[in-house]
């Protein structure tokens, strides 16, 4: 099996590769269209800013390439947000694989729990559906770092409550996405990655 991690102008791509190595999988980090198209599994990671990253994906043609992939594709964090229809971060149209929209977290006026933005740390995932989750993961804690969120929609396969419930995972056809970082989420994260790799 050939797994590729899409290389683009976003940080910490290596940590996804490290997580795969821990699970006993080799992956290639690449931006070469042909290698991405031919891979059995594609991971689209990302830490960064939506507008700049979308510009890069549009200029390089990587954006169109990702949309047309037919093998299982997993978007992580910013990767997930870029797979949605639009992001409020820089008010930018995204890849529109998922019709859901990306919005900014707004702290409530009354904030007795001192909630912060970004949503950073370990939070729980509920109402799990779809192929990369299994019942053992329901309610588990996973690691998040983000200031924008995907509203709940038709393709939501996990929800997390921070300020309000939102989509912490999405699935449509061959496209999967998690807002949290499975590569940094201890054992539950490894299980989710494993489920994806075994699809």
């Amino acid at each position: 099996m050939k797994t590729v991690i899409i290389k683009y102008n976003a940080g910490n791509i290596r940590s996804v590769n490290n997580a795969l190595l821990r699970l006993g999988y080799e992956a290639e980090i690449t931006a070469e269209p042909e290698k991405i198209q031919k891979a059995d599994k594609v991971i689209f990671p990302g830490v960064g800013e939506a507008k700049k990253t979308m510009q890069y994906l549009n200029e390089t043609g990587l954006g169109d390439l990702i949309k047309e992939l037919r093998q299982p594709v997993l978007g992580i964090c910013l990767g997930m947000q870029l797979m949605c229809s639009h992001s409020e971060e820089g008010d930018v149209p995204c890849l529109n694989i998922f019709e859901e929209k990306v919005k900014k977290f707004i702290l409530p006026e009354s904030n007795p729990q001192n909630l912060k933005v970004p949503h950073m740390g370990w939070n729980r995932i509920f109402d799990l559906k779809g192929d990369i989750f299994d019942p053992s993961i329901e309610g588990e804690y996973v690691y998040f770092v983000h200031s924008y969120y995907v509203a709940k929609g038709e393709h939501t396969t996990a929800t997390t409550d921070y300020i309000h419930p939102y989509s912490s995972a999405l699935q449509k056809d061959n496209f999967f996405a998690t807002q949290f970082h499975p590569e940094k989420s201890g054992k539950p994260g490894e299980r989710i990655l494993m489920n994806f790799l075994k699809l």
Partner: protein
Amino acid sequence: MLAKRIIPCLDIKNGQTVKGIKFVEIKEVGDPVELGAFYAEQGADELVFLDITASHEGRKTFVDLVKRIARHINIPFTVGGGISELKDADALLNAGADKISINSSAVRNPQLISDMAEHFGSQFVVTAIDAKQLQGDDWVVTVNGGRIPTEKRLFSWAKEAEERGAGEILFTSMDHDGVKQGFANEALSKLSDMLSIPVIASGGAGSVEHFKEVFTEGKADAGLAASIFHYKEIAIPDLKKYLKKEKIEVRL
């Protein structure tokens, strides 16, 4: 709900873990990768590795160590110590660090926070502040492990760091560090109220009750400690069970 984080901190010298008691006496307590993996297994939510090596060769050893940590540990980790330029941070990012922590270099050159946030994103930039209480609300920011007082004051500096794009504030009270009588909860609570980014409390942990207090009275988002974990005075699973029983949200 978002869980409160428990963060063991490992001081590293020449690739080995050490813990300075009040930053002066030093005693080796193990291999950083082994110790880090042990803590991750025990339920630590994040790890901090601070390089206290000053030499150039030591820096290279540290970057190699960060690569090994990233390869073996399945939870997020922050690295700090001796980062004074973008290229230092870049080397650590490429080695696999999730966040970097800057302290004295940011005090000397506040623009560094803005540059790092712009370059790598706020989530990558932890600003660490070591401060000493003068009186009441007046805390002086110190550098070089608490030895040198500066012109800056804790609250205004923390606010400036946030405005410049810091993703988190790691506040160490030099009066509480190593004393094990509890965290600086009053100052922490004020920080947490005035900032919209997470606050990591450091300095003073001596018992499980101190962690409860830092999350309730101190309103901290995370509690960091070193020696009590390294010397097994508190085991992380016991600490988390205690906090859960006390109705504090933790990841178990």
